[in-house]
């Protein structure tokens, strides 16, 4: 029998190496490519809606990318991209959409409320909580600085 530590070493020694350079390169290329698509939508919306303020163009771009991420998840394409791209598909906003749509689909069989609706936040929940709490902290600190 092997102890825990020993077993971990054994696994890391014998598990097939994924080729670190390859994973880094594919993450870089896929991530960069997704961002270029996002820039494309930003430029397109800025061209179509010239009077619109920048923040709304950004919001429209996010919504479009989220739609694409969710739709690709539905068709099962995003998982295929993810198995190659790793962080290149997780970090862009499309990956955030995937992190909501994917568990929602998977747990739908456990019911709409306790399956789909509850489990859709398995990954997004921590992200949203972190974001809201940190934005409150930032806002409070800036307010204190503004008042003092």
């Amino acid at each position, binding site marked *: 029998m092997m102890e825990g530590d020993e077993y971990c070493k054994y696994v890391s020694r014998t598990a097939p190496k994924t080729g670190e350079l390859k994973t*880094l390169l594919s*993450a870089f290329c896929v991530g*960069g490519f997704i*961002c*270029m698509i996002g820039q494309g939508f930003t430029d397109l919306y800025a061209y179509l809606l010239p009077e619109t303020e920048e923040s709304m163009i950004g919001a429209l771009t996010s919504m479009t990318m989220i739609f694409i991420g969710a739709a690709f998840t539905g068709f099962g394409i995003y998982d295929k991209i993810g198995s190659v791209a790793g962080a290149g598909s997780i970090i862009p*906003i499309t990956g955030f959409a995937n992190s909501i749509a994917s568990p929602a689909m998977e747990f739908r069989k456990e019911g709409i409320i306790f399956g789909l609706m509850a489990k859709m936040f398995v990954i997004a929940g921590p992200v*949203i909580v972190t*974001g809201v709490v940190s934005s409150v902290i930032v806002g409070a600190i800036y307010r204190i600085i503004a008042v003092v």
Partner: protein
Amino acid sequence: MEWWEYILKYGKVFLVGGAVCLIGQLLINKTKMTSARILVTFLLFGVVLEAVGVFGYIKEWGGAGITIPITGFGSSLAKGAIDGSKISLFHAVTFGLASVSAGLTAAIVFGFLVALIFKSKPKKL
């Protein structure tokens, strides 16, 4: 804009966006972080960059390369809070979430609809 200016601009977007994801992949390879941890880490990264005032400079150079990754989500949260802090404490603590309401609404509604329409395929292991 000339055609070569577009190539330069989109090249920068590709570089910055690629670099962010490369750092993420490095973290995954080195620490075996899960995707939830990666997303939280980069979100906080965006919040901090915005709070210290660096995010705007990166955005000016790299455009969507820094706003499309989840760092952009964090930046919007912090930027909303900072804008709100100029009005009152109430706005300072509520404007963060308000500024990402479009993205959050889209993510929840599209995620919900996709799960209603599509059936999850059994995963190949």
